[in-house]
């Protein structure tokens, strides 16, 4: 299944899940920011040194590429 990292700037995708990743990790923080299954995320830009800037409703969130890679999405 594609991850958010595979999405091009300008596209909107729907979150379907979060890879567990290492213990602790970013999963909780992602959930709390609203990256819950069913949420629509728009990729706004790719960072100059990697990572993604995404829009979640009116909020803009920067993610490093590893974290973005953990967000499964489809549409």
């Amino acid at each position, binding site marked *: 299944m594609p991850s958010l990292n595979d999405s091009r700037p300008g596209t909107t995708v729907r979150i379907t*899940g979060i890879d567990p990743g290492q213990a602790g990790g970013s999963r909780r923080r992602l959930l709390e920011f609203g990256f*819950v299954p069913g949420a629509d995320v728009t990729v706004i830009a790719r960072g100059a*040194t990697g990572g993604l800037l995404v829009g979640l409703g009116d909020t803009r969130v920067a993610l490093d590429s590893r974290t973005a890679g953990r967000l499964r999405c489809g549409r």
Partner: protein
Amino acid sequence: MSCHATGAGATGTATAERSTGTPFVALVGNPNVGKSTLFNALTGAHQRVGNWPGKTVAVAQGDWRTAGGRRLRVADLPGSYSLLPDSPDEALVRDVLTAPAGERPDAVVFALDAANPARNLYLLSQILDTDIPVVVALTMTDVAARRGTPPGAQALARELGLPVVRVEGRTGAGLDPLADAVWDALDLVPPPAGRISAWAAGSPVAAELADLVAEAAGRTPHPARWLAVSLLCGEEPPAVPAALAERAGAAAARLATAAEGAGAQDTDARSADTRSADLAAQGAGAQDTDAELLVAEARYAWAHAVIERAAPRPAGARPTLTDRVDRLLLSRGFGIPFFLAVMWGVFQATTVLAKPLQDGLGDFVSGPVSGGADRLLEAVHAPGWLTGLLVDGLINGVGQLLTFVPLMIIMFLLLALLEDSGYFARAAFVADRLMRTLRLPGRAFLPLVVGFGCNVPALAGTRILNRRSHRLLVGLLIPYMSCTARLAVYVMIAGVFFGSNSGTVVFFLYVASVLLVVGMGLILRPLLFRDMKEEPLVLELPPYRLPTLRVTGAQVWQKLAAFLRTAGGIIVATAAAVWLLMAIPAGAGHGGFGKVDVEQSVFGTVTRATAPLVAPAGFGDWHATAALGTGLVAKEGVISTLAQTYSADEDGDPKLTASLHATFEESSGGHQRAAALAFLVFILAYTPCFATLAAQRAEIGTRLTGIGFGIQLAAAWLLAVGVFQIARLVW
């Protein structure tokens, strides 16, 4: 007065018990929602900042004087995304709001960002689980209005079942109705514990949660609904009855299994397919966090439903002006050059721009002020020692302190401008990759860059870091950033010993400075901050804004005053102390107090005694250690002390050059260039100045400053010895 109101609020007889004290209101909200602006508007000048009892988190508290002469005590709790904490700041918010009954705040004022309602409502749903009466202060309505139809206060109040007051912290609009709403909320008898939270009703977790809440109610002094849901999310709060913890574990496991099996029957077919696939992919090992995912989903579903009913609006993110700017400022081609340009600008401002102001102030103190004081003391026939102490000691020390003032103002102004404009979060995003080697956030880049100019404002700049451990580590690393005061010493010494190659030597020292910072970071982090783990970047980027002069000015003044208060005394006192040591003769027959040669003073005796300590580095001579000694006070003192001890002029005096060659040739046993390089490396690595120590103490505390001081001396000695011993093989 204690920091917790006792007895009032949570037990349901608020009105009766409150007569014993001022009600305690906690101001809570996400970061960047205008919470602190609101706090300042509520309390005005009646506030103080200090560590929360038993914690290392600074919290501002103040008096909120409401209409009719009644007072409320308000604490501005740190900006927080969640009651499932991810940082010490967030843990404090959780601890305050979920304390045992009777120690909790009497009411919460929740700052809700109208421009960003969903994530704010997520936190609100957690706070409602604590059973503390909540009044919602709706902020940022102007920003929200520009983006379309924001949820109105009335509609939100209807949907939430809570008082909602629209406020404008900068103008003070809405503060009186907010106070009325808080007083009303304090008089309400809270509903009985045990009912199901609004966000959970109708969600897959509702039945299990209701069960756990019933089990918890009456068996814990903490809020039952909060305790039940945090257990379900895999948290381990202290002192939970074993039976309850066991039931929560079983409930979480059942929820995970059910979610896996029932996914296909979910009403939302699109997310259902993928959710079950996701859960299957995670396997049984991640079961306990699946309840957490269900809870997060339920809270967000509730938040979106509230917004939907309060302000129907088109879904999806529309590109804003900020987005268009970000596409440029974060792009591969333009992002890094722009970031470097901003950092260059900060560096220039704290060096080139500050320089004439610093020099002007310094000249003013050493010229007219000292001269005036001299004449004044002469006129009243003051003894020579008093003139020396007052003019060369105290006034000189105050002069040194004053030269930092323009530097600090510029630094604080830049920090405030970068932060308030919104660019700083972008800079942190760009530098994230680079700083990751040290497991520091991207924001740490700025104080380190400023350290190339001057360590003192750089240390003040560590306050932009959100985590204490990050502030401490960066605070310990900054002294290794080679400041411009050290550059003056490099240029002079390298010029004497390396001639046309001195440029290369100075460049080598700057490279060494960066390597030293990285190396020290890699050594100190695992030693002192074992719990500092590599963190994922999940960073909110606020919209670009024009900073307002009033808010920025107030911030700058507050920080400058704090710097002068905490560091000022030490800087003045050490300057006076060193003057004193140089003025006291070490024995009889060396001239009187204030008339003695440096060599025969107490200072000279001490530096002579310490010279053998640095003999392995090739510069074991009292001229050199005397220069290093005054260099402790300020690096500007190194050259003037060398000149003074050789009775030469400071600038290009052939006598000074010849004396230095002779001294280093002798102390190094014929390897004077190796010794000079070692001396320069020592200058780079040891304590930059007492002002840095004072600033460090203000930011990271006395203990760590002491440890850092020891490490600086040890590192400088080891490196200098190493450099000398290796370089003497070549030169």
